[in-house]
Every structure is written in C-alpha cells, then in structure tokens.
C-alpha cells in the first residue's frame, strides 16, 4: 500500500440559528450567544434559522421553489463552502468533485395530512378516500423536495458539483460515516476533492411528532445541554446547514488553496445499546484509534441532551478530565445529521483562528482553555444509535 495522503479542510460553509458564515459564528460563539425559541412550537424548544437571503447562493427563484427548507439550507451552506474553498464556479474542479451528503427527508405537507386525519376522525374512510385525497392534494413536485438524495441533486444543479453524488441516511451516524468515507477515499487516492455535509430544518411539526414518539424533545424551558438532568432531558431541534470541502494536500497546494486544518482521522461504530454503559465503552474503544493524543486537548461534542446516551458520554468524558469540552447542542440545538459536520467545522475554524471558543456551561463541565489548539477531537453519539470520533489538527 502507498502511504495515505494527508487530507485538508479547505472550505467551510455554515448557516445556523446563529447566522451565516465564519465571522458571524466566531463572534457569536465568543459572545456565548444562543438563539432559542420557546414559544413558536411550545412546549417544544427549537433553535430557529437566522434570517438568510437565499438569493445570495441560490440565485434562481425557480430553484428555491423546487426545494423544501432543508434543501435550501443545505444548498446555501454548500455554496458558502465552495466560496470559502475558492472553487465556486470552477467548472474543471466542480465537474470532478465528489459529494457525500448526509440527509434525512423533507417536510410533509402538514395541512394535507391533518385534513385527511380529521376526515378519518369523522368516519370518512371509504376505501377510495385516502387515494382520492392524496391524488388531489399532494403537490406533484413535493416528492422531489422530500427525497433524501435531492439535497445532493439540488447542489449539483445550483452549484454544478457533478463528479459523484452519494447520499447517506441514518440520523447522526450518517454524517460521521460521510466524513469517514470521504477521508478514506481521498487518503487512498480514490478521490482528490470532496464536498461533505448535511442540512437540517428543525422547525417542523412532523419531526417533533416523530421524536415525541420516543420522548426525545426538550420541553418548556431551554437549558444548556449539560444542565439538562434526567427528569428534564431532551434535545431542542435546531436548524443548520454545514458543508466542508476536503481535499488532498497535494491537490490543495497545486491550486494554492489555504487550509483551515487537517482532517486526520474519523472512526465510527454501532454499539448495541441494550447494555448500560455500551456507548461509554464504544467511545473508549474508538479513542485510541484516533492516534496519539495529548492529555489536555480540546473536544467538541454533538451531545444531544437525551438520556441515557448523554450520561454515557459524560462518563466517557470524565475519563479524560484534562480535555476542554464544548457541546454544540447548547448553542445550536440538535441538528441530527448536521451535528457532526458542525463539530468538524467549528474544530477547523478554531484551529484556523488559533483559539478555542469559550465554554457556555453553568455546570462547570466545560473548562476554559487558552492558547492555540493543535488538536481538536470531534465527538458524536446519536440519540438512539451510532457513535464516532474525529481528529482535526493544525497543519505542521
């Protein structure tokens, strides 16, 4: 085997409840700003998308109309990432750029669903009834706005990313695997450059219902992730889109691209969570696979705030007491597939700015850290399955 190639993060695009772009996010993190809405979906707490002018990255209104909110958020963030990498509009590169998107699905037409369900409740349920209503009431193009792989499809259409296109599904783990596979392909020479990321619209009643089935939603009052106790656990859904441009060092150097950081390693596993402590054990088993780590590094985690996984993550973190931890769930809410790319983006951003952003945690789990981080571990553990770690490093 040839020596694995070094992989750099050369582009970052973020849009979230805290705004858009790297400067806005850096400022918000340093100001410990949180944008949370306790009223609109009360009793459920959400982190709504900051005002965004989609025209800036999706110039055709026709394209915007063909998309549901999650696709617009993702296509927008993808455009920011391509801008940040300096490859926007570069047909030669975009035409061979690989893409791995981690996606859920699009929003249902809730009024249509509710009208049908109300009719059922009134006894209107002849065999043909559901067929008739769906045939008459579903917008034909809604399907395309819901299909998981159509976020990638829209990024191809709007931005011209048209090498390869793969969509991974499966909630939080989908994006850990997206980063893992992209890194492996570039490191092995199967790919030179890739766009990797995800998008999530957290302002959706159909998603609230799905997660309410499992009692995962945070209700009534916002609390920082680490301050949510067992009786008041849950996640507050967040809206965000995050994309990264990853490329081999030689590809980046050849085009004179400036890197934010190096993506050194991504590891993932699926613990069988029937046994208490399985997630703690799984993370412990993944830890040494990251390589050589210091005792007093930094770690950015996508911890959800739901139980029992949050307690298991805490147990894992308590075994690494020197680490300065930052939970993105406090500032951004839980963005499912987007949480891991968000962690990678903030790690690369912190390394490029020569500082870790300050803690935002009244419990004291998150400690201050001064100085420029050379390594940041990114952690993700899904609300019900899947866990992974990544190592982002400063370029020597």
């Amino acid at each position, binding site marked *: 085997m040839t020596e694995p190639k070094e992989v750099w993060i050369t582009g970052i695009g973020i849009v979230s409840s805290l705004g858009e772009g790297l400067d806005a996010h850096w400022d918000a993190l340093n100001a410990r700003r949180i944008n949370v809405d306790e009223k609109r979906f009360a009793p459920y707490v959400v982190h709504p998308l900051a005002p965004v002018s989609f025209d800036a990255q999706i110039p055709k209104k026709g394209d915007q109309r063909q998309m549901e909110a999650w696709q617009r958020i993702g296509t927008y963030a993808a455009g920011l990432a391509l801008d940040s990498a300096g490859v926007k509009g570069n047909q030669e590169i975009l035409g061979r750029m690989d893409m791995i998107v981690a996606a859920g699905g699009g929003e249902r037409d809730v009024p249509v669903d509710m009208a049908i369900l*109300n009719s059922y409740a009134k006894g209107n349920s002849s065999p043909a009834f559901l067929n008739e209503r769906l045939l008459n009431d579903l917008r034909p193009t809604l399907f395309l706005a819901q299909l998981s792989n159509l976020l990638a499809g829209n990024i191809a259409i709007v931005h011209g990313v048209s090498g*390869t296109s793969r*969509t991974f*599904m499966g909630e939080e783990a989908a994006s850990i695997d997206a980063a893992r596979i992209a890194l492996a392909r570039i490191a092995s020479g199967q790919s030179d450059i890739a766009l990797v990321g995800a998008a999530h619209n957290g302002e959706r009643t159909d998603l609230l219902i799905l997660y309410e*089935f499992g*009692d995962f939603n945070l209700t009534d009052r916002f609390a920082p992730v680490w301050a949510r106790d067992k009786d008041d656990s849950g996640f507050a859904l967040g809206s965000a889109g995050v994309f990264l441009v990853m490329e081999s060092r030689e590809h980046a150097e050849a085009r004179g691209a400036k890197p934010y950081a190096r993506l050194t390693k991504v590891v993932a596993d699926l613990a069988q969570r029937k046994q208490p402590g399985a997630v703690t054990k799984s993370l412990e088993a993944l830890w040494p696979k990251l390589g050589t780590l210091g005792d007093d590094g930094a770690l950015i985690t996508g911890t959800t705030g739901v139980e029992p996984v949050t307690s298991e993550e805490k147990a894992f973190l308590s075994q690494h007491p020197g680490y300065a931890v930052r939970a993105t769930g406090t500032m951004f809410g839980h963005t499912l597939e987007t949480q891991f790319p968000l962690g990678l983006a903030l790690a690369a951003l912190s390394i490029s700015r020569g500082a870790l952003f300050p803690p935002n945690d009244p419990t004291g789990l998150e400690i201050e850290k001064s100085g420029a981080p050379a390594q940041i571990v990114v952690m993700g553990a899904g609300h019900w399955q899947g866990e992974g770690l990544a190592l982002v490093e400063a370029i020597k």
Partner: protein
Amino acid sequence: MTAPRDKFGRPIVVVTGMGVVTSLGAGKEDNWARLTAGESGIRTVTRFPIDGLRTTMAGTVDFITVDPASSTGLTERLAVVATEEAVGQSGIGGKGDFPGPLFLAVAPVEVEWPQRIEVGQAIGKADFDVNDMLAVSGGGKFAKYHHRFMFGSVARYLAEKFGTKGSPISLSTACASGATAIQLGVEAIRRGEADAALCVATDGSVNPEALIRFSLLSALSTQNDPPQAASKPFSKNRDGFVMAEGAGALVLESYEAAMARGAPILGVVAGCGELTDSFHRTRSSPDGKPIIGCMHKTLADAGLTTDQIDHINAHGTATPENDRMEFQTMFNVFGERAKQIPVSSNKSMVGHTISAAGAVEAIFSLLTLEHQRIPPTINYDIPDPAIPLDVVPNKARDARVTAVMSNSFGFGGQNASLILTREPI
C-alpha cells in the same frame, strides 16, 4: 506468493454469495427459472384499495408479509431473506458474525399512513390540529414508531442480526442505490480496509402514497390490463415504469481472502463508475454526456474497452425518456456495435425495484455469466424504430458472455454503472 491484484495493482473484488427476492419469488433458483422463462411478476395490487388510482399494478412481493404491516418493515424483511441466502451461499464468518462492513441501499423512510391514522385516532375527537397530535405522541405509547421510522433502522437491524462490523452505512442514490451499495463495498476492499463487505439493497415500498407520488410525476405506466404486459422497455408503446419490490444481497470479498478459505467464486466486480448529471431534478441532460461519461469511467475503472463488453443489463425502465436516452448514450459509447450487443431489461419482468434495482440486476447479470444465458426483455411486441437495439426480445438466449455492463440511473442526476465478469480479467 503475491496477492492477486488487478491491472491497476488493486485487490480483485469477487462475489462469493448472492441472494435475491423479487415479485417472481425468493431465491436465485426460482428467480432465474422464471426470469429465463420470460415470466412477469407484475400483478394488480391487492395490498390496499386501488379505487381512483391511475396505476393499479405493481411488482409487489406478496408472499412475504410482516406484522404490523409497514413498508419499512417489509423492506427490512426482504433484506433479511436476501442476506440469509447470500451469507449462506458464501459460507463466510460464523452465524451472526459477518467479518466486514454493511452497505445498505434503502428507500428514504417516513411515518406511514396506518401509523399516522392510529396516532390521529388516539386524540379521541374530531377537529384537531397538529398540536393535538403532538400532545398524544409522547409517553411511550408510540415509542416503537420512533424506532421503526428512523432512516437508520433497517441497517441497524441487519447489522445486529448478521453481526457486520463497524458503523453500517444506509444510502440512497435513488434508482442507482443498489449499484452504489456495491461500489462502496468494492472501494472498501480495494482500500484494504476490509477483506469482505456485505452489500444489500432493498425496497418494499409499494404503498398508496408512494404509488401516487410517482404517479403524480407521470412516471408510471397506466397500462393496467393485463398487468403482466405493462412494463414494455424499449417498445414503441412503452408508457412508464412499474413500481416493484425486492432485495438483492451480495457478499464481496478480496480474491485473496476468498481463495484462502476456498470460497465459491461467483464472479468479479471488475469496475464501478458514477457521474452526476446537474441538468435537472428528474430529466437527463439532453446531450447524455453524464451517462456517457459514467459508462466511460466504469470501463476505465475495469480497464476494459467497449469491445470486451458482450452484454448490457440495461436500466431499461420503460419510461419514454429513459429508454431513448439509454440507447442514445450506448450508441455514443459503443458505436454501431451498440446495435449488436444483446441488451436486456429485467424490469420488463420484475418491474422497477427502485432502491434495490442496482443490486438485483447485478445479481441477474452474474447469473447470466454463470449460466451463459441471457434473460429476455419481455412485452417487446412493437419495436421502437428510434431504438434499434437487440433487446433479446421475449425469449431467453444462450450466448457466450464474459463481461456484462449493468446500468442504473436515478432522479437527482444519479448515474452509476458496474462491470461484472466471470473471471478476473
């Protein structure tokens, strides 16, 4: 002894186990017998009322049922049946201990109507809104529906049941998903990350809303009577695809690992390629360049030239546009030889198994290589003069076949091709 490598120095990837379920039956034997007999698995839908629907037939798998009924549950069950056959044939690993990763092509998941109606009824009054629905959703009564309708639920179940290693990947590249699952497995073995990979593609999603969604996009055939004749790939009177269900599972291994354990070698995945079309959400670029490029990339990946391909397992959906575009692009890539290469569409018999199609058709391609017999394109009574292909019309044909190209194209600009051979080339 040095490890067997392909001409690019990569580990050769072979297939050591295959399993398949379609509307024609469960298992390779049944499917192959009926496929080469030119039988159709398409029938009038009986699973739910068809009143008012424009399309009333599909390639449903009715001989396997799940309780409680859901498309995601059936999708999972079909995958299990196909995987058991594949792993059993391969003889790899111990029971529930597959020594490699899982790559699963699966349809996007949503809460389905029976479950949504059940939650609605729990409200216990008429004239309710979404907040009333939210109010009854928690408390654990519907916890099982959270698990059932997570996108990662089918992969999680398979990973546990078959003991695959690491984080299982669920993927969708629309109608190319099955090919993408195989491609991910091939890449992992070529990188040396794994000696074996389990690649599964499954789709059990014929339900009222899915059928209506495709119907609203005018993608489906409406030639309901007789249902067996609805899917007419490459015919002049083709009018759309027929939704279908099925699953395909392949055990991929490095040639070296397979030989070391004396495993059956059923064929070689010689090449994979994909190229995105950024023209439109559902339509191909009129010049066909992305599809042409996809086929060229696949040939290059396999290190083969066009004259070494002696059969094409077409995407062949029977939509007016797909079949015309597929001929146009084949003609561009293969030249006049495109008219001589036997081209079959399995979808004429099993319908379009959507997320599963790429893997189901890869398995049929490998069976074609094994039996040296090409399955027909049935319902080919009125040739389309604009598509002068040898579609192996209506009757299977014995032929010498050494390398098959299998094509898959999907919504969202997804194009993927595979080249399968009997022996390492």
